[in-house]
């Protein structure tokens, strides 16, 4: 063995080095968590407030104390969770700490905000003419808008989002399969134009779209809006689905064909099950896109029986905002719940979106 050179020789103080590395790692983690909390609080807080207001605001009373009290519980809770995550030595300790913090936070919440909670703001669920009721509480009755039942708007939104999802899924999966598997003239150009279509700000087309629907007699019909939404959602859905189909090996399709399946049977029984995650992801995104649609329904739907949830919310805000922001928040919560439920249910599949990948 040759003698060690200056560079090869290692410093002797191993424990000191290890300790320094350890504390550096801790400090970095702490800084990271602090940063993440600082930027995520302004994002989470509005949702938290929305729910708090919806359940606590009273007609004609501008009371922000409840909000401050709830924030005083909420923010320390988040920070405590973060500290627990950093300082816990093992999994057991962490769960214990989290449970304890959760319990304390719940108790504090019940104590400080509990007495102010009430469901009265959700009156719109049962009373179509809630605007008059709300106004009568503060004494101003005249000029209240005639609202349709919220369930009508809910049904319209469901119909638009659902029909849009079904159409997009069917067309996108067939089109993407063809783009992925078959060679035809201008295939590459078509793929490129798909992306260009998606890059278009849809709002720019609102006037021509309006004229088109008018001449087709589809203005102020749900069907017209569904067609427009489908047209704008399709390019991206096709593109995503093509990525998923590209990832399905040719071999299993060939195998199905030699096993006696027709091309259609092979597609339905062998290929389609492989892209299930892609279909689910597209379905969720398309549904939520239709659920939250505002601009097109606002432009193309006129009669109040055609209102969707977004229009309903808009007119509620227009009508009673000055008197009762509690009702507006309650409508917001009601509007939010279905998409939240859908996201939570499909979360597992949405996380796998990247498996299909997007290839050109």
């Amino acid at each position: 063995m040759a003698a060690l050179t200056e560079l090869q020789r290692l410093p002797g103080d191993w424990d000191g080095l290890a300790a320094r590395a350890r504390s550096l790692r801790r400090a970095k983690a702490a800084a990271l968590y602090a940063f993440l909390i600082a930027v995520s609080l302004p994002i989470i807080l509005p949702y938290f407030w929305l729910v708090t207001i919806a359940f606590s605001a009273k007609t004609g009373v501008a009371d922000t104390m409840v909000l401050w009290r709830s924030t005083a519980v909420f923010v320390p809770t988040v920070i405590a969770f973060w500290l627990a995550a950093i300082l816990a030595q093992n999994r057991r300790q962490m769960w214990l700490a989290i449970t304890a913090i959760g319990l304390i936070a719940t108790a504090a919440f019940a104590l400080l905000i509990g007495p102010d909670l009430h469901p009265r703001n959700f009156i719109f669920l049962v009373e179509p003419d809630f605007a008059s009721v709300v106004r009568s509480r503060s004494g101003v009755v005249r000029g209240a808008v005639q609202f349709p039942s919220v369930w009508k708007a809910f049904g319209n939104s469901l119909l638009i989002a659902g029909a849009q999802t079904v159409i997009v899924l069917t067309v996108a999966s067939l089109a993407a399969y063809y783009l992925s598997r078959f060679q035809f003239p201008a295939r590459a150009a078509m793929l490129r134009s798909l992306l260009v279509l998606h890059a278009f700000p849809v709002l720019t087309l609102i006037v021509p779209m309006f004229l088109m629907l008018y001449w087709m007699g589809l203005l102020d019909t749900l069907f017209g809006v569904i067609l427009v939404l489908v047209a704008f959602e399709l390019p991206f859905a096709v593109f995503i689905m093509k990525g998923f189909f590209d990832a399905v090996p040719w071999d299993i399709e060939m195998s199905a064909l030699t096993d006696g399946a027709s091309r259609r049977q092979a597609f339905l029984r062998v290929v389609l099950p492989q892209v299930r995650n892609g279909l689910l992801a597209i379905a969720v995104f398309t549904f939520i896109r239709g659920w939250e649609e505002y601009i097109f329904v606002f432009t193309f739907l006129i009669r109040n029986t055609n209102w969707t949830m977004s229009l309903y919310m808009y007119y509620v805000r227009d009508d009673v905002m000055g008197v009762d922001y509690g009702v507006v928040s309650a409508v917001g919560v009601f509007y939010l719940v279905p998409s939240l439920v859908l996201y939570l249910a499909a979360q597992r599949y949405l996380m796998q979106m990247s498996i299909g990948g997007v290839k050109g």
Partner: protein
Amino acid sequence: MARVEFRHVAKRFGDVEAVRDMNLTIEDGEFVALLGPSGCGKSTSLFMLAGIYLPNGGKLLFDGRVVNEVEARDRNVGIVFQSYALYPHMTVRDNILFPLRFKRVPREAALRRASAAASLVQVKDLLDRRPGELSGGQQQRVALARALVKEPQLLLLDEPLSNLDATLRLTMRTEIKALQKKLGITTILVTHDQIEATTMADRIICMRAGGIEQIGAPDDLYREPQSLFIAAFIGSPPINLIRGEAGDGTLRAGPVTFPFEGGAGAVTLGLRPEHLNFADAGLNGRIAQIEPMGREILYVIETDIGYARVLEHGSAAAYAAGEPVNVHFSPVDSLVFDTATERLIAGARAHPPMISR
């Protein structure tokens, strides 16, 4: 069971000629291997038989009937893919049942046949699992069962062993061969692995660049390769190629001169590693590398005319790396190729056993 015929079959992909003017007859019950390097058209030929590719020219015949236009699903061909191509979302049982679904086999009979096919390849315990939970070898067996369950007239195997580990490959080789003999089914194996081809097939069709280079029994291809390409492709460790010069009734190559009547000009001598010997005189060189292979030892020797490989029996090396040695060979064992045309001029044992120095 079927007798398969290729008559002037051609397949083009755009400007690329994948298969050109292929003529071949495979007898009923025969086990043949399509052997060649990647891109030689062997898989394309297989997919044409399966009905996945449509030939651009010529005729494909099963038992004398032209099948060019017959759909893949009506050909009754079983195929095992390199990737096994099992349907990931189905259990093993459903995978094996899949081909029977389209034949309108009653449920009872279908289940019976599936379990018979499964026991044939010993996967009966795995019927409720999904392909993702199986090892490579098990997936391979399931793929075989799925190909066999419909009692096909033709079994196509596309590199079926290349994804298995070495030990398993050996077992599966024996098993597939035994299964083929037992069922008597016409089988075509596509492979780039010459050992697979020589150990399993009755007959090997060696392909190169879309055409058939040579057809023969495994032994023929090893001992009498008709071209330099096959000489170099068949045999492991590979053959030694030594440049020589023929003319005036003799042939000179390295240390050896012997009478030769096969013509004049540049020739290439092909010598299997087992036909090179260490001697006191001859081609001299230096041992560059020693590769023990168990029963044999391969010496790689650096000589003036390139590397030479010598295969010696025994497990202990008699020489050390770097040692100077002399290598000699007998013309009796040498294959003589025309360097320009790469065709065989004279096979082994075609020369009179005369060595002059």
